[in-house]
C-alpha cells in the first residue's frame, strides 16, 4: 500500500514545514487541484529542498547553458587511429573510424517453422505437451481429489474419489490412446487401491522334428562360350537339318533297310577301329612338315632361288637340281611315264616298268607330291610293267595306264583299292603288244569317259567306259604302205605298222599324229579309219615321241632313237629344224609358257633345253642331270605352273630341276597362255 521507497530525508523537513503546508493549501485552491487530507503534507513541501552535499554554484554558472548534441558517434570509439601505409611508406592518420558499439550480443537459434527441423521440433513439442497435459490432468485431478478429501468423509470420499479417479484414469488412458506413440507407457495405477494379478500357463515343451533325404545327385558343368563355340554349334545344327532333309528325299523302304544296315555296319566299324586311324590327317601334315624341315633349303630354292649368274651367261641357262624322288619298291624299274596332275600342281604320277624285252617284271604307279619327297602319296602295283599313263583333265583322280602286256586299266585315286577300277582283258580287246601311249579324250555324247591307246600291234583303239565296263573300238589300223603281200587264198596281207607314240591336236579335235617304229609319222583323223591324212618320213629309227606345239597349231615335234629331234610344220613334208643330240633321245616336251622353248632328254643322261627365239641351232642349256653316265633318262615333263621339270631315268629315280631365268624367257608379241608365279 505504501511504497517503501520514500525519501527519508523528507520526514524531518515535513515536520518543520507542516504549517507552511497548510498555508499553501489555500493558495492551491486557486489552481483547482483537489487534494485529500493526507496530501497536505505533500502539497506543503513545495519549497525546494536542498540536499546537503549538493554542488554550490553561482547564478551565473547556473544560467550557463550547456549544449548537448545527440550524435550517432560512439563515445568509446577511438578518434586517432594511425595506420602504416605500405604504398607511401609512412604512417597515416585514418579519419573514418568504426562507430558501432555493440551493447549486447546473443547467439540465437531461430529455425523457420516450415523447415524440416522446425517441423520435427514442433512435433516433438506436441508429444511432450501431450504427455505433460495428461500428467497435468492427472495431477490436477489428484489435486482436486486431495482438495475434496478433507471436505468429505473418508469412506465416502474414497468411493467418490474412486469414481473420479477411475474417470480420470479413463480420461488419461483415452488421452494416452489418442496421442500417438507415447515415448513411455506410463502405467497409471490407482494410488490408493491397486493390486496386480497375474497367472502363468503351462508352456508346452517344444520339440524339433527334422527329415532328411538323400541329396539329389549333382555334377559340375562348366563350358566356355566363345565366338567359335557358338559358331560350331550353329554349323552342327545346319548339318543336322541338311541330313534330315536328305533322308526325307531318299525315302524308299528298301533303301532304308540298306541304309540302316550300312549305318549299323559303319557304326560298328567305327567303334571297333583303333583310335590311331583318326590321326591320319594330322600324321600326313606332320610328315610333310618333317620333310620340309629336312629339305628346307631345297624348298627355299624351289620357291625363291633365281640364278643370278644367268645375266653373265649370255643367254645360256642352267638347271638347278631340287628334289629326287625314289622308292624302294620301284628300285629296279625304269621310269616309263611321267604326268603332272592338272588340278594339284605339286602332284605328279610316275609309271614304272621296264623297257627291256627280256627282263619283264611287275609295274608300279606312284604319285608323288613335291611337299613330301620321301614317300609317295599313292602307290599301286601291277603285274605287268606300266608303259604309259595319262591323267584326266576334268577328273584328276582318274588315271589310265597302258601295260606292257597290252592291257589298259583305269585307276581311281579316290578309292582306296590298290587294284584298278577297270581293266581290259583279252576278251575286251586288249592289245597284243605293249601299249605305248594312252590319252584321255573328251567325254562322248553320253558323258562316258573315253580314251585312246596306241600299241605296237598297229591298232589305235578307242576305249569307252560304259557304266562299269571298258568297251573298245578300233579307230585305225596302222598299215605300212606299199607292203602288201600275198597271203593264203589271195588275201592281201598288210604289214602292220607299230605305233609307238601319238599326240592329239590341241584345237582340231579329230586330228592326231602317230609315230611308228619304222620311223614314219602319220597324220590321222578320228573319222577315217583306213586312210591317213598325211605321212611324214620322219626318222630312221622308231619314233619315241611326237608332240604338238601348244601355241602354234601347225607345228609339231618328234624325237627318235636315231639321235635326232625334228620340228615340223604339218603342211610341209620336210622338217623345219633338225637337231642332232649325240645320243638316243628319250623324250621331248614343249614348255607351257613359251611357244619356242622345248626340252629333250637323251640316254647319256643329259637334258637339253632349246629356245628357238634365242638360238635356232643350238641348245641354250645342255646339262647332265643324272648321277651316273649309265643312267638313261627316259622321260621329261614340264610343270604347267612352276618353272620346274621332272626327269625320269631308267633306275627308277625322278629328279626335279628348276629352270634358270634364261630358260624361261617369254617371247614378246607372241600369245602367251602362261603366267609365271
Amino acid at each position, binding site marked *: 500500500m505504501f511504497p517503501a521507497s520514500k525519501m527519508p530525508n523528507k520526514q524531518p523537513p515535513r515536520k518543520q514545514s507542516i504549517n507552511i503546508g497548510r498555508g499553501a493549501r489555500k493558495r492551491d485552491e486557486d489552481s483547482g487541484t483537489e487534494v485529500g487530507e493526507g496530501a497536505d503534507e505533500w502539497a506543503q513541501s513545495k519549497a525546494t529542498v536542498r540536499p546537503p552535499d549538493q554542488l554550490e554554484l553561482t547564478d551565473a554558472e547556473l544560467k550557463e547553458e550547456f549544449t548537448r548534441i545527440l550524435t550517432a558517434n560512439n563515445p568509446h570509439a577511438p578518434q586517432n587511429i594511425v595506420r602504416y601505409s605500405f604504398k607511401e611508406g609512412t604512417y597515416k592518420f585514418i579519419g573514418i573510424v568504426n562507430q558501432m558499439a555493440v551493447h549486447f550480443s546473443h547467439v540465437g537459434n531461430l529455425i523457420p517453422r516450415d523447415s524440416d527441423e522446425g517441423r520435427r521440433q514442433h512435433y516433438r513439442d506436441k508429444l511432450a505437451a501431450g504427455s505433460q497435459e495428461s500428467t497435468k490432468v492427472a495431477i490436477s485431478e489428484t489435486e482436486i481429489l486431495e482438495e475434496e478429501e478433507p471436505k468429505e468423509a473418508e469412506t465416502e470420499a474414497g468411493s467418490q474419489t474412486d469414481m473420479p479417479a477411475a474417470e480420470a484414469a479413463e480420461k488419461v488412458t483415452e488421452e494416452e490412446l489418442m496421442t500417438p506413440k507415447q515415448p513411455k507407457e506410463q502405467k497409471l495405477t490407482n494410488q490408493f487401491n491397486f493390486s496386480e494379478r497375474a497367472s502363468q500357463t503351462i508352456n508346452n515343451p517344444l520339440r524339433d522334428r527334422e527329415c532328411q533325404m538323400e541329396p539329389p545327385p549333382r555334377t559340375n558343368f562348366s563350358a566356355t562360350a*566363345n565366338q567359335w563355340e557358338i559358331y560350331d554349334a550353329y554349323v552342327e545344327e545346319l548339318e543336322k537339318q541338311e541330313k534330315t532333309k536328305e533322308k526325307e528325299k531318299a525315302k524308299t523302304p528298301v533303301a532304308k533297310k540298306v541304309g540302316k544296315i550300312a549305318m549299323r555296319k559303319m557304326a560298328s566299324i567305327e567303334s571297333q577301329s*583303333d583310335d*590311331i586311324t583318326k*590321326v591320319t590327317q594330322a*600324321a600326313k*601334315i606332320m*610328315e610333310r*612338315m618333317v620333310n620340309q624341315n629336312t629339305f628346307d633349303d631345297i624348298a627355299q630354292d624351289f620357291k625363291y632361288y633365281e640364278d643370278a649368274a644367268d645375266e653373265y651367261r649370255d643367254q645360256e641357262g642352267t638347271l638347278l637340281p631340287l628334289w629326287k624322288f625314289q622308292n624302294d619298291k620301284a628300285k629296279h624299274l625304269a621310269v616309263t611315264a611321267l604326268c603332272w596332275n592338272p588340278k594339284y600342281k605339286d602332284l605328279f604320277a610316275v609309271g614304272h616298268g621296264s623297257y627291256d624285252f627280256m627282263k619283264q617284271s611287275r609295274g608300279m604307279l606312284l604319285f608323288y607330291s613335291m611337299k613330301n619327297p620321301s614317300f609317295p602319296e599313292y602307290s599301286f602295283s601291277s603285274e605287268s610293267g606300266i608303259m604309259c599313263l595319262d591323267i584326266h583333265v576334268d577328273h584328276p583322280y582318274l588315271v589310265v595306264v597302258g601295260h606292257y602286256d597290252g592291257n589298259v586299266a583305269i585307276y581311281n585315286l579316290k578309292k582306296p583299292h590298290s587294284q584298278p577300277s577297270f581293266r581290259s582283258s583279252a576278251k575286251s580287246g586288249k592289245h597284243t603288244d605293249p601299249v605305248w601311249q594312252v590319252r584321255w579324250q573328251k567325254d562322248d555324247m553320253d558323258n562316258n569317259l573315253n580314251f585312246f591307246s596306241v600299241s605296237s600291234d598297229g591298232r589305235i583303239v578307242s576305249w569307252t567306259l560304259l557304266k562299269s565296263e571298258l568297251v573298245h573300238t578300233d579307230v585305225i589300223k596302222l598299215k605300212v604302205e606299199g607292203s602288201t603281200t600275198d597271203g593264203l587264198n589271195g588275201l592281201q596281207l598288210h604289214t602292220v605298222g607299230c605305233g609307238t607314240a601319238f599326240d592329239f591336236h590341241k584345237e582340231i579335235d579329230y586330228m592326231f599324229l602317230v609315230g611308228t617304229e619304222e620311223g614314219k609319222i602319220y597324220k590321222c583323223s578320228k573319222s577315217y579309219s583306213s586312210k591317213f591324212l598325211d605321212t611324214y618320213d620322219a626318222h630312221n629309227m622308231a619314233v619315241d615321241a611326237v608332240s604338238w606345239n601348244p601355241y602354234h597349231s601347225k607345228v609339231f615335234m618328234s624325237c627318235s632313237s636315231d639321235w635326232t629331234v625334228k620340228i615340223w610344220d604339218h603342211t610341209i613334208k620336210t622338217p623345219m629344224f633338225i637337231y642332232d643330240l649325240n645320243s638316243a633321245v628319250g623324250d621331248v616336251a614343249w614348255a607351257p609358257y613359251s611357244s619356242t622353248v622345248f626340252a629333250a632328254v637323251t640316254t647319256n643322261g643329259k637334258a637339253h633345253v632349246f629356245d628357238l627365239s634365242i638360238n635356232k641351232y643350238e641348245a641354250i642349256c645342255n646339262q647332265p642331270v643324272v648321277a651316273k653316265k649309265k643312267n638313261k633318262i627316259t622321260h621329261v615333263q614340264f610343270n604347267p605352273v612352276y618353272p620346274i621339270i621332272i626327269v625320269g631315268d631308267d633306275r627308277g629315280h625322278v629328279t626335279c630341276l628348276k629352270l634358270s631365268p634364261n630358260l624361261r624367257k617369254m617371247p614378246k608379241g607372241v600369245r602367251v597362255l602362261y603366267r609365271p608365279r
Partner: protein
Amino acid sequence: MAEVEETLKRIQSHKGVVGTMVVNAEGIPIRTTLDNSTTVQYSGLLHQLTMKAKSTVRDIDPQNDLTFLRIRSKKHEIMVAPDKEYLLIVIQNPCE
C-alpha cells in the same frame, strides 16, 4: 590302319626326328617314343598351348581353324598337328 602306323614309323625314322607322341583330347598321351616323364611333360604343356592357339585363331575368325603349330627353339623344333580328337607331336632337330 596300317597306313597310319606306317606313316608314324616313317616320321619317327626320318632324319633328325627325336621323338613322336600321340596325345588325346584330355592331354593324356596314347603313344610315345620317348620316356614317360618327358612325354607327360610335353603332352601337358603342349596341349594347353595348342588349345590357346586354337582359341586365338578361332576367336579372330570363327570360320578359321588351327591346322599346324610349330615352335622353333635353339635346340630343336616342336611340331604339333592338332586333330579333332588327337594331337600329334613331333620333336625334330632341323639340320642346320
